[in-house]
């Protein structure tokens, strides 16, 4: 599904990411890499092969969009350093031709040097480009003139139908000044979003993105 913001074109993808056509950039939020290994280190037996799925979907995205740049909207890595970081570095090296940026999220407690070492451009707070601002925490008051892209929330939305039906799915939340992307990681939960004035919600299944309103 394609939407237009400030004259630019953005594709909302079923892999739970946004592709910015004008700059060939993927916007990805809340991967929470390292979370599974972190849990396992603490004796909580999450199946280790779930880790591969994040990378499988990343590969899919890179191949289908042909992106030349990725902006990670924070919470790339969930915990202190563990072996999953090395997997990420391997993946990064295999995609050395793609420019990658990160705006730091609350879970990104790794030393900045590790991000730099993995050839990521690090932005401690926000990253601005043209009319747009990329950050981790959504901004409550739109102080800036710029349109904001954020993560952090892990938004999901429940749709209702006749016969008292309902379905809960990850969603993109687009307000007048801000867009929130769904969380990308396999092992992440969700936060229920509500409809609001001037807000558009797009829910996504594994095959299709729908505009709710």
């Amino acid at each position, binding site marked *: 599904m394609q939407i237009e913001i400030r004259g630019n074109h953005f594709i909302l993808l079923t892999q739970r990411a946004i592709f910015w056509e004008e700059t060939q950039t993927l916007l990805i939020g809340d991967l929470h890499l390292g979370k599974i290994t972190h849990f396992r280190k*603490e004796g909580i037996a999450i*199946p280790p092969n779930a880790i591969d799925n994040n990378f499988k979907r990343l590969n899919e995205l890179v191949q289908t969009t042909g992106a030349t740049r990725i902006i990670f909207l924070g919470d790339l890595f969930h915990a202190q350093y563990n072996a999953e970081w090395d997997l990420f570095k391997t993946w990064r090296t295999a995609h050395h031709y793609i420019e990658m940026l990160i705006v730091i999220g609350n879970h990104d407690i790794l030393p900045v040097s590790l991000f730099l070492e993995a050839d990521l451009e690090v932005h401690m707070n926000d990253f601005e480009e043209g009319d747009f601002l990329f950050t981790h925490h959504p901004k409550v008051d739109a102080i800036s003139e710029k349109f904001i892209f954020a993560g952090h929330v892990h938004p999901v939305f429940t749709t209702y139908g006749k016969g*008292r039906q309902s379905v809960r799915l990850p969603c993109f939340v687009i307000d007048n000044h801000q867009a929130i992307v769904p969380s990308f990681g396999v092992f992440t939960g969700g936060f229920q979003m509500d409809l609001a004035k001037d807000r558009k919600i797009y829910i996504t299944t594994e095959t299709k993105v729908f505009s709710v309103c």
Partner: protein
Amino acid sequence: MTKSPGHSIAENWFKSKKWKWAAFQKEAAEAYLDGKSGLVNAPTGSGKTYSLWVPILIRHMNERSNKELKAKRGLQVLWITPLRALSKDLFRNMETAALEMNLTWRVGIRTGDTNTKDRSDQKKQMPDALIITPESLHILFAQKNSSETFKNLHTVVVDEWHELMGSKRGTQTELALARLRSLKPDLQTWGISATIGNLEEAKHVLLGMKFPVSKSAVIKANTDKKILVESIIPPRVETLPWSGYMGTRLVDQVVEVVNQSKTTLLFTNTRSGTEIWYRTIIDKYPEFAGIMALHHASLDREIRDWVEEALHDERLKLVICTASLDLGVDFRPVDTVIQVGSPKSIARFIQRAGRSGHRPGVDSKIYFCPTNALELIEAVSLREGVVKNMLEDRPPIAHAFDVLAQWMMTLAVGEGFDEAQLFEEVCDAYGYQYLNRQEWEWLLGYITTGSSSLQVYDEYKKVERVDGIYKVTSRRVALRHRLSMGTIVSETGIKVKLQSGKYLGTVEESFVTWMKPGDVFTFAGMTVEFVRIHEMTVSVKKAEGKKGFLVRWAGGRMPLSSQLSTFIRERLADAIENPHKELELAKMRPLLELQASRSMIPKTDQLLIEQCETREGYHIFIFPFEGRLVHEGMSIILAYRISKLTPITFSVAMNDYGFELLSDQYVDFEKIMNEVDLFSTKHLVDDIYQSVNATEMAKRKFREIAAISGLMFQGYPGKNMKTRQLQASSSLLFTVMSKYEDNNLLIKQSYQEVLTYQLEEVRMRQALDRIANQKIIVKQTRKPTPFSFPIMVDRLREQLTSEKLDDRIQKMIKQYSNAD
């Protein structure tokens, strides 16, 4: 019985107390002193404790007088009780008896309430007899010297075994008993149980698989106490609503009954129910202030203790309670019991009735207060059940891998275990008799490598294998396990505290999240104002005179038991023909006539189906009268089988009498029934698993399993922040584990629990077989009927669909925009 020295002392003791050594107590003493194990079946207040405690003392006295059998010191007797509240009373009775027989026996208590000093004293020197909960017993096994602790143990008594057996705490007890039997092969094990349908099985579960039947006994107390059942009936039946489950419209009649009695217990089925009743009575009858109290599981321990003590001391006229007072010590002043709403099972009803009239020769009387008009039929059914003494079974839990995983960890934290030996030991427990090597190895993998394979080498850390012994070496892992042991999994409780500092109890997180300062709610019988929330504690202040929200707690709704539903089907079919047989039926007549005119009242060889259309869509109501769990299962099966014929989505609702399939499309039910056998038992389990709901239900079951098996860590006491990086909801764990690991036993267990406990598979098969021989009658109705209305207004709904997700969303979005 030849009189041993101890026997004579005991006899004199009974005489000095002016008590009769009852026949069943003598019988139990004989069996015990004969070296047997088994079960004593006796109600509360009958002297069941002495039936075993006295012979234990006789044995001790005889061994003391026999020089060759010099009595040993240290822990000799374990007395397992399900309730901490019972332990004090038990302690008093046991210690007094020992003292009065001039014995210097030490009796101790070990529960979650035992303070650190007593614990460390016990570590140095165990008392001769220890009263303990299943949880605390497991904690003894998590200590490094556990086999030393149990060195001189010769007897274990499990109190209220019927109550423990059907729960995972029962499984916990089974595992501990299996271990104790392996440490002490001569161990004598006795259970004390109220009457249940499956007493023989209860004995088997208690004693394990290998125990020789010839060395066991079931001893029954002869009780011929009569139970009288009386309904509280409004002058006009129209006063009763068609649906509803609070019953407060009958408050005047209820208070009348209370006023005629000395002390009354009023049982409701939910915690919110007690709060509503308390409020209703105090508003209308302010004179009850100070002589009425509340008792439910979410109230602070101190408040509950106070209520129980006040009950003993005859300071209270009325206590409004939930199942929290089902068990426990006798409250002698209680002479009246009122049950509000369906008790769902005859055994529970009798148990509650038994809380009154403890004096010998006095009949127990229980009042039934219906909460809706149809429940009057339950009154007559309950009465019939009581007269015929048709008691329900308590089925034991089988294959609880979560409890077993926790037990393996517990032993690994303690002395460590040899896996082959432990495997054999565990298989001796009734609940694990069918455990196979493959499952066992998965569990070993789960606690050592965190996967089904024993050869994954990553940073997973839990149990290690050192010299063939599985043990935990990390102190952090051990501490964390000790903090998360147990099988009772509660919602994340938020404490409620008055600003003065007094704790009132707990509410659920979901209740607090939408509260603002200034909001008023009713809790612990008080109206309080929300001040602030800080670190899992809500501060409140009293706000008398204001109206407030009602606190709600999530809690499973009990299903109608199979025994009770059989009676209901029969009484209903009979009601139209013999309306004057009982008062309740005569009262119900107008309602039943309305049902008959709008639709019909099914005979026992008929199955009624009603269809009607409302603004909400197309309704199908089916009335098997089999209890809500079976109906849940049937609704899934039917919805799935219909949806295989055509893409359709149903939302389903059910109560104890029937269930509803609601859809946005009309279903020609009669035509479909000619094409497929909707009620067939063929492919039953497959059809359930195929439906989307099975996954949703399993996900919910998984919450408890994840917590018991150690996947969810609640955090160190007072250190919530430290574990923040370790929070994951059980539904997320479920999704990831079922997607990325084949044959995960814990996932499998959650499906199995859905099948066995949630949908009562066995009972559902019986019901489907019965339906196969019934005539199915489909009625098109223009209006909802007395039968269908209560289901229709139920907001708790499940969904079933065979439409593609993408198509459904398209449709919903379209319907949504049409509505604008």
